[in-house]
């Protein structure tokens, strides 16, 4: 690589670690590193400060009441909080088994020639911009759900009277949002799961096989328990993504400020509430209310991510990786 020039070796450069250049370098990189905590603090501070007027006015009822009336200055974000949680849970229920299945397939069963292409395609899902998912969702997925999935569940399966599937089939719905989110978080969960599975020592697998376990029993009894907390970490990381996802959800969730038990009813999410109303917010209190929603999102994703990272880190450490 770069051979040292004779100037560097000729002795006019002090060798001790505390030369002025070294100190400057150390301070500079430390400074850059400090930008990250400062930035995070600044984001938290700004968003909270801006949301404070609304939080002070409405107190805890801001997150528990469901009246959102910009004209009369009444703000309760419960439907958005509810929609965020429900759509994310739907996404997790769909995505988790798929993602773990893909990860197991890729790390244990896939023939060598197909491993790379499938891994590439799944990774590619993470590269597709949110707005493109939204576009596809609103113009392809939602019409499909309205024309096929909803009638199928309601009429063919006769589940239309269940609260979970009741109401008219508009198309844009919590369910549609959950489906889009499931596709979007699948690559994240599967990437982490694969990483964690690869960190499980070979001896663990060999021991199980030597005891006569089938290949599935090896996975189920010897590999998955070992990787459990890492996989849970990956799932929670996916949850974090789903909770904060904005564009795709805004485009398919229907944006209606109502609490409804039905997955087929349109709803709202915290992120889509901000995306939708922010530029139209006129009163200061309205802006502050949206900022408060953002602050809520900040805190929730902060906690969720912290838990996820801790779990993944713990598994990694157990293997000394």
């Amino acid at each position: 690589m770069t051979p040292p020039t004779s100037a560097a070796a000729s002795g006019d450069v002090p060798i001790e670690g505390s030369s002025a250049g070294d100190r400057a370098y150390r301070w500079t990189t430390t400074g850059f590193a400090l930008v990250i905590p400062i930035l995070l603090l600044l984001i938290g501070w700004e968003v909270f400060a801006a949301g404070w007027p609304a939080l002070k006015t409405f107190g805890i009822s801001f997150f528990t009441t469901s009246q959102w009336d910009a004209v009369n200055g009444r703000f309760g974000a419960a439907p958005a909080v509810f929609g965020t949680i429900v759509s994310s849970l739907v996404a997790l229920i769909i995505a988790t088994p798929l993602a773990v299945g893909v990860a197991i397939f890729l790390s244990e069963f896939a023939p060598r020639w197909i491993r790379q292409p499938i891994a590439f395609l799944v990774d590619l899902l993470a590269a597709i911009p949110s707005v493109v998912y939204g576009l596809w969702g609103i113009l392809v997925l939602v019409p499909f759900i309205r024309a096929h999935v909803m009638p199928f569940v309601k009429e063919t399966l006769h589940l239309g009277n269940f609260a979970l599937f009741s109401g008219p089939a508009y198309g844009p719905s919590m369910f549609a949002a959950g489906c889009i989110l499931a596709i979007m978080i699948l690559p994240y969960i599967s990437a982490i799961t694969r990483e964690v599975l690869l960190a499980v020592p070979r001896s663990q697998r060999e021991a199980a096989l030597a005891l006569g376990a089938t290949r599935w029993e090896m996975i189920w009894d010897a590999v998955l328990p070992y990787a459990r907390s890492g996989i849970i970490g990956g799932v929670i990381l996916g949850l974090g993504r789903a909770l904060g996802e904005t564009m795709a959800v805004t485009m398919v969730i229907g944006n209606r400020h109502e609490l409804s038990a039905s997955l087929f009813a349109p709803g709202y999410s915290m992120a889509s509430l901000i995306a939708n109303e922010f530029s139209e917010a006129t009163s200061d209190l309205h802006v502050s209310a949206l900022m408060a929603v953002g602050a809520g999102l900040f805190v929730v994703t902060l906690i969720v991510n912290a838990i996820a990272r801790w779990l993944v880190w713990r598994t990694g450490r157990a293997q000394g990786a």
Partner: protein
Amino acid sequence: MIMATTSSSVSVPKKAAGTSRPYRDALAASTAKTLRRRRVVNRVMVSLTYVAAIIATIPLLLILAQLIKRGGASINWAFFTQTPRPPGEPGGGVANAIVGTGVLVLIASLIGLPIGIGAGLYLAEQRGSRLATVVRFLSDVLNGLPSIVLGIFAWHMLVRPFKHFSALAGGIALAAMMVPLVTRATEEMIRLVPVSLREAALALGYTKWRTSLSVVLRTALPGIVTGTLVAVARIAGETAPLLFTAFGNPYWSVSPMQPIAALPMQIYNYANTPYDEWVSQAWAGALVLIGLVLVISLAARWATRSRFGLGGD
């Protein structure tokens, strides 16, 4: 293949052999049955993972197919060279939005790259220090923050006080997304550089900072370029942080102080309209955006494979 042949439960009848024939036979029959069941379960579950892999790739193929079909139909020369027309008027393009995305990415990179690489150097070199642990953790947390939160943060800090939207505010919001990505990529790549290389440079009389910059960083460069390109691909497709910062602009603008158009925002605005021309432009825009992201991602892979052979995923 080591498929199930014996199991721990099989050793029981061997010990019981000779004591009582019927018992042994019954036990043998039941183990054969168990074995068959276990094999069936094995086959079913293994097949299910194959099915999962197939299902997981279907949405991607569907999306790409739609993009090519619907987007390909409305891509033409004007799409890349003209600015948007009002609804109802055919033609027009998103040239300003494509350039706008370029400007935004450039601003974000100018701010985000030095910070990310500097912080990555720190994390790799002060690996054990308490600050490094905290920063590493917080950079992951920052990476997980919803982009819309970065958007309203940038609005509150950079748009509200100046009372107008600007490309600079959008670029800074994107930079905040870029920093954690570049930081972790840099750290990982620098960790891959052999310690012997650093020691050799120090032994030859290089100062620490010159060793870090001209030996270690240079060796890790292809990997860092990859990480940077991945980060660029990610922020180039972002919409949420730009909605209230860069805001969008139907006209040509490259000024950092003015509102600026961006391709993802343009897609979002067009997708939500009842006008067929605009919807088909949204598809075309999405196709271009995906193309852009794919080219950058492939370039990232290529950068990893070239030269030093360091790096990898």
